[in-house]
Structure formats: structure tokens, C-alpha cells
């Protein structure tokens, strides 16, 4: 009877090590198929508030991290012509630094913002204004 023998060193070197490195890389770097286009996320909370920004999933954490954050403000009293105005997070009284942690249990949905959406157009215009962070 033929017996199969497993070379543990071979398995460790060519299977387990690449798998571990791949898993770590996947946490740090997004899939190459999505490279080259901006991935702006909309995080919709249970209380109705929506935040837009660059999402970073923190593994094994109860929170997600959103950077370069924008949100909607009631603009019905203004003459913008829309019921909502876009505001960049950071100008509040406590002047939060970039990076916002949001508890996962408060999130209703996470969606990717369309590349032709008014939100991304407004953010893209904001980045072109002199002195505005890109």
C-alpha cells in the first residue's frame, strides 16, 4: 500500500507563508482591480445621519474608521436650491482632527459613492479650491 508523506517544510514555505502574507496584504492594500479610482464610502447611521469619506476597516474592532469626512447639513433655509448642503468635518467648535471612529452597531448601511454623483462632484470641487486639503 502506497503511503502519502507530507513534507512539512515544503507546505510551510509554499502554502502557509504565502497565505499569511497574502492575508496581511489584503488587510493593508485594496484589491488591484479597484486601483486608480476613488472609493468614497457613504456610511448611513441608524439615526439618519450620513457621513462620506474614505473607509478603513479595522479588523477585530467594534468600530470602523472614516477619513476625509463630509456630511449633510439642513440647507432648506438657504438659497442653494437644494434641501441639503455639504459640510466638511473639521470646522466644528472642537475642531476634530481627521479620522472618525464609528461604532459598527450604529451603522445601518455602508455604500460606495458613485463617481458621477453630486456628492463626489462637490468634494472634487472642494479639493480644487486653494488652501483646501486634497
Amino acid at each position, binding site marked *: 500500500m502506497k503511503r502519502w508523506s507530507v513534507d512539512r517544510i515544503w507546505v510551510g514555505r509554499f502554502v502557509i507563508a504565502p497565505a499569511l502574507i497574502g492575508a496581511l496584504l489584503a488587510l493593508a492594500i485594496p484589491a488591484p482591480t479597484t486601483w486608480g479610482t*476613488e472609493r468614497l464610502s457613504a456610511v448611513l447611521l441608524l439615526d439618519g445621519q450620513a457621513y462620506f469619506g474614505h473607509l478603513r476597516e479595522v479588523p477585530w474592532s467594534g468600530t470602523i474608521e472614516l477619513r476625509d469626512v463630509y456630511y449633510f447639513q439642513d440647507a432648506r*433655509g438657504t438659497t442653494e436650491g437644494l434641501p441639503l*448642503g455639504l459640510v466638511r468635518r473639521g470646522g466644528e467648535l472642537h475642531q476634530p482632527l481627521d479620522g472618525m471612529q464609528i461604532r459598527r452597531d450604529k451603522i445601518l448601511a455602508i455604500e460606495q459613492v458613485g463617481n458621477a454623483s453630486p456628492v463626489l462632484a*462637490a468634494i472634487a470641487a472642494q479639493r480644487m*479650491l486653494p488652501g483646501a486639503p*486634497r
Partner: protein
Amino acid sequence: MREGAIVLPFRTVIGIAAGVVVLLLLIVIGIQPGAREAIARVTDPRTTASQAALEQQRTATEHAVQRGYLKATGQLAEVRKLTLAIPASQAASIADKALADLRGIRHDALTAVGSRLGLIAPQLDAYVTAAETQLGENAFADDKPVLLAPDLYAVVARADDLFQRASDAAIRELTKAPSAPPPTPSPTVRPSPSGSPTATPSASPSGR
């Protein structure tokens, strides 16, 4: 060879060292903001607006400011149509001052728009003058709404607030009850300290 020493083949040592280096690199990439941002610039670049899109934002902002201006002047005009308790000359004076204030607010708002777009002194003044001329009294009511960039939206929101305050203040003044007439000066009242020649009868040269 010393007794109890662990002997590792050279290739194994090289493999372990390479593994440790890769692991450290991954940790640095994951933790260091600079390294993470360098990767993000390639994998998740930031979209910036084209010049045409920026022009659209500028025009939409100017029109929004203009709508706020016209809303305020319209409210003022509606109040002027009423029969007011104050004298017509006083009402005209209040309305003229309010209109000048509103034009000033629009001027400042357009200056803020220009400076947010990166214009500086000589070009900024030329831009504001040209924009004011172009806006005139047009209402731009049929504009397709544009979601403004946050900084431009802030200019519009601030201007709207100031337009409303100026208009409300003028309307309050226009619609207030006329103040009680001052007591009729009696002929025995002492001359005004201002020394006006038409002060009171008792101050007349005839010296009654």
C-alpha cells in the same frame, strides 16, 4: 560544537529572516500614516474637479447669492407697498439704507467667492465688479440646483443669514409704530443748547 546548541541550516535562517522583514514591512505599512497614504495615493487616488466643473460651481454660488439678495430686496419691496405708520420720507430713508446694506452684503459675498477661488487683489476687484454687473437684478429662478463645495456653500449660507438679518431689521424699522410726538414746546421753554437760530420763540431777537 557546544553541547545543547540548536543548529539551523543556513537556508532556514535566511527564510526566517526574510519572513521577519516582510512582516515588519507589513506592520509599518499598516501603522505608519505616511506609508499608508503613499499606498492610498496609488490605490485610491483623490478625484479633483475639472476647470469646467469648478466654473459650474462658481456660477451656481453666484446665482445662489443673488437669489438671497433678491429674496431680501423682495421682502423689503413688499413692505414698502403697505401703508406705513411712519412718514414716507423716513420710510424711504430706511429702505435706501437697507438696500445699500444688502448690496454691500452681496459685494462681500462675491468677494468671498472670488477669494475662495484663489483670486487676489486686482483680479478679485475686477471679478466682483463683473459679477455684480452680470447678476444685475436677474433672479436665476430656473437654475438646475447644484450641490456646492463645502467652502462655497458656507459663503452662501452666511450671505443668506446676513441678507435675512438686514432685511428683518429694516422691516422692523419700517413697520414700527411712530414714536409718541414730543411734548409741544411752550413759548417759555429755554433756548436749545444747540444754539440753532430757529430754536424757540423765546430765543428770537425780538426778545419777548
